[in-house]
């Protein structure tokens, strides 16, 4: 009897992407606990930090600190946007490892507009627009290279990541007006009208970029699931040749999807510099939001809602990362957990082996009957 009830659960589990994602995340955390025990730290600290970043309260009797919640939500903005970037390309069968570069270029564009144009109300909209356009160009180039010249998008985006990373200080130090604190790695100040305003939890960095992100999630869902364009993109992702045979322009689909994917990442860059950083910092090393976007999209199965939830999870982890520093736990444990989550997700294809085995066992059973 119990066996009969159990079997459908395994089948349901193997078929459901959502359930495997949750299982994978739990596995990642278990591995993190083992790691903490191995290096002689108390794993409870990890969960205290996580709890603190979700509800703002560390322990019973401890004070409420909503700032943590605000920071968590603020951090999840770039994660979700970069996840959308990765996911959008993934649905078209492309591996956009270049969200990092598109993010950097978007950030640079927003930076330039915020510094060079005299302040006027609503300037942030222009900054965001510039970031969208530049991000789209940076991604679209890859799409064209891929579609026209058959350059592997993985390698091309890696190259562009580094070009963007070097371009940022190049432009900032040589072309933009310099601030008085030149030596501390800043350009002239960002116009205050260009910053994204804080809302709700004023003590934190939670800013209106959150709404931009929500709009982006809806746009992602709408384009992918509800438009003809989205259908042709998904068809190209499933089978490029079949899509071409049924009259879909796959060159256009690939270029366009990379451009849209780049626009999402560019928006993430704008949200970070205008909402999180909030001063004219010159980027000198990669922020890793783009690379983490890969993990976010994988955990979220490249679906809009999935990416949203996964991005929130990564926002929580990022805030826990800062809290853990104060607890004497090496914060890189969080990155290890994230890396393991990605590996476990990649191993999901191993589940199809289990499925095959079960199918074979079933046939064998029927035959022996």
């Amino acid at each position, binding site marked *: 009897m119990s066996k009969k009830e159990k079997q459908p659960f395994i089948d349901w589990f193997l078929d459901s992407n959502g359930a495997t994602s949750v299982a994978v995340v739990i596995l990642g955390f278990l591995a993190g606990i083992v790691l903490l025990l191995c290096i002689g730290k108390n794993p409870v600290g990890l969960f205290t930090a996580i709890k603190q970043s979700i509800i703002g309260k560390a322990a019973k009797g401890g004070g409420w600190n909503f700032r943590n919640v605000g920071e968590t939500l603020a951090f999840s903005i770039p994660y979700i946007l970069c996840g959308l970037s990765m996911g959008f390309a993934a649905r078209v069968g492309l591996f956009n490892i270049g969200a990092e570069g598109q993010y950097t270029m978007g950030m640079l564009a927003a930076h330039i507009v915020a510094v060079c144009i005299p302040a006027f109300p609503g300037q942030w909209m222009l900054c965001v627009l510039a970031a969208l356009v530049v991000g789209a160009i940076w991604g679209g180039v890859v799409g064209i290279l891929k579609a026209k010249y058959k350059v592997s998008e993985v390698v091309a985006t890696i*190259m562009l990541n580094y070009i963007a990373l070097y371009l940022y200080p190049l432009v900032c130090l040589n072309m933009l007006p310099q601030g008085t604190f030149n030596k501390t790695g800043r350009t002239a100040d960002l116009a205050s009208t260009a910053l994204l305003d804080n809302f709700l939890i004023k003590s934190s960095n939670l800013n209106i970029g959150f709404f931009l992100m929500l709009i982006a999630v809806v746009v992602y869902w709408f384009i992918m699931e509800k438009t003809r364009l989205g259908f042709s993109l998904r068809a190209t992702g499933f089978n490029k040749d079949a899509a071409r045979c049924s009259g879909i322009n796959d060159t256009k689909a690939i270029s366009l999807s990379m451009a849209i994917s780049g626009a999402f990442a560019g928006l993430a860059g704008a949200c970070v510099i205008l909402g999180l950083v909030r001063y004219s910092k010159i980027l000198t090393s990669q922020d890793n939001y783009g690379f983490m976007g890969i993990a976010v999209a994988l955990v979220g199965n490249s679906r809009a809602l999935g990416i949203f939830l996964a991005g929130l999870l990564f926002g929580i982890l990022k805030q826990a990362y800062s809290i853990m520093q104060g607890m004497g736990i090496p914060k890189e444990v969080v*990155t*290890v957990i994230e890396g*393991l989550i990605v590996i476990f997700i*990649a191993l999901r294809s191993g589940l199809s082996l289990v499925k095959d085995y079960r199918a074979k066992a079933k046939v064998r059973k029927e035959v022996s009957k």
Partner: protein
Amino acid sequence: MILLIQYTLIFSSVLILVALGGCFSEHSGVINLGLEGIMVMGALGGALAMKYLPIAIPGFFYVLLVLLAAILFGVVYSSLLAVACINYKADQTIVGTALNMLGTAAATVLVKAINTAENVNNVSSEISYIEPKKKFIAYLGEFEFNWFMVITIIALVVAYVVLYKTRFGLRLMACGEHPQAADSVGINVYKMRWAGVLISGAYGGLGGICYILAGVSIWKFEYGVAGFGFLALAVMIFGQWKPHRIALSALLFGFFRALGNTYTVFEFLVNMKLPSTVYNMMPYIISLIVLALTSSHSRAPKAEGIPYDKSQR
């Protein structure tokens, strides 16, 4: 000038070693995007060896032991890629990316744990190897000769001979071109791919220890290897998956990298007033252009990136 040659040679050594690693892996049919992470692990192995080995060991054996430690760490870490991608047919690009994320973070956690265990107040992720480093370097006049230059040449010759002149190498390449055909004549594709990935782990580990010994004598593991693994991938593609061409393109890439560090020595370059980042950007821009021109008739192993499934014909 001497400085430029020295930097070029040492950067090229790193790139050649790591790119050859990628070359072995890809010829067996597995894309190894995790070279960056493997380098970090190799560097960790070597650095730990330098930390714990008594300095009294004679130079040659000392160097050998450090190299072996780096190779061991690289091989063990790359076996993660092998298990996931060959046995469980996971997506190679994703696992490679995960290895990169994991490598730097895991190495940092480990080094931090070791450091705090020694001294509670030490929460840095640094390992210093000022004394051991001297064993890797010999001075020829002003020129700082690094033993890795010799090791790289040996590794290059070995790679060429193994790939083109031995039965093993030809079988390995067959597995990357057409695994089904290879299997049909009795080659065990899974074993060959395992071999390819593990060899790439060994080369990557060597490259990692070479990288951290190149310039400084204190290494902070938080920094990772600053994209050298990815640059090595570019070198490999630029070199069309052939060891001798990889060596040439590594020299080119290494030259530009070195120029970024040493261009102030040359008057005419200083007069051009180009920021140093331009030189750092150069290899990436060149390889992007070359990729655009050559990719449509690329000599990439045909079956790379596709998990081998015996039941599919």
